C-alpha cells in the first residue's frame, strides 16, 4: 500500500470556491488511478456515507515513486452546506485521495471547513 502526504493550500472554503491540493508520495507503489474526492460525509456511530461527492477523476495512472508529487483542484459546490453536529452523528467535509490498487486501496484524508454562506 502506498503512503501519501496530502495537503491543501487552505483548509477553509466558501461554497463555490476552488480547493487546491498537493499530494506527495511517501511510500510508492503502482496505481490504477489516483482520484481526489471532496465528500460531504454523514457519520454516525456505525456508518459513514457521502451523498455529495465532487471528484477530480483519475489524474495519474502508473508507478508512484517516493518524492513524486501531484497537484489537483476540486470545486466546492455552490450550494454546499457547512458542517453540523447532532446528538447521534455529524456532517462534515473531507478531501479523500484514493489510489486504486489490487487488494486494498490506499487513502489519504484531510478535513475541510466549509463556511456558511
Amino acid at each position, binding site marked *: 500500500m502506498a503512503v501519501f502526504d496530502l495537503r491543501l493550500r487552505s483548509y477553509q472554503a466558501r461554497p463555490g470556491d476552488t480547493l487546491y491540493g498537493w499530494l506527495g508520495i511517501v511510500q510508492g507503489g503502482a496505481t490504477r488511478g489516483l482520484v481526489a474526492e471532496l465528500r460531504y460525509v454523514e457519520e454516525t456511530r456505525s*456508518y459513514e456515507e457521502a451523498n455529495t461527492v465532487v471528484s477530480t477523476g483519475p489524474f495519474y495512472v502508473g508507478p508512484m515513486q517516493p518524492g513524486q508529487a501531484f497537484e489537483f483542484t476540486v470545486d466546492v459546490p455552490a450550494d454546499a452546506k457547512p458542517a453540523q453536529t*447532532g*446528538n447521534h452523528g455529524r456532517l462534515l467535509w473531507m478531501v479523500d485521495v484514493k489510489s486504486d490498487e489490487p487488494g486494498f486501496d490506499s487513502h489519504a484524508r484531510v478535513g475541510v471547513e466549509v463556511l*456558511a*454562506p
Partner: protein
Amino acid sequence: MTGPDWGFSPVANRFRAPEGFSLVLDRYELRRGESFVATVQVSDPSLITGTFELGLVCIERWAELHHHVQSDMHDHRQVYEEPIYQWWLPLDRDQPRTDLTLQVVADAPFSHAGTALSFEWSVTARDRRSGFDKLDRHDLTVLP
C-alpha cells in the same frame, strides 16, 4: 415506488387529521436566525378536547448497523429518530385566529435529508389527547 395498500395509512391519517382547527405558515423555507409566522385558525372549539399547542420541532434521524455476533441473524441497519430541538407553546382554543412569530435560532441545526443522518424541521399544531393526537403538520426547510 409504493408498497401494497393495506389500508393502514389512510386509517391512521384519518385518526390524526385535525378537527376544528388548521395551521398555515407565511413561509416554508428560511435561514437560521430568521423568523416566520404560524397562523392557527379555530373553526370549531368544541372539537378540541385535549391539550392544544403549537410546536417547532427538529428531528434527528440516524442509522446504525447492528451486528449479531452470536446468532444466525444477519447484520441489519436500523434507523432511529429523536427530537434534537423542540419548542411547544400553548394555544387558546377560544381564539378564532392566533398569529405566532417563531424564530429558528441562529445556532439551530439546518435541514439535511441524508441516508445515514438527517435533520428534519416541522411545525405542528396539535390537539394532544390520550390515544391519537389530532394534528396539522407542515415541513419547514431551514437553510444554513
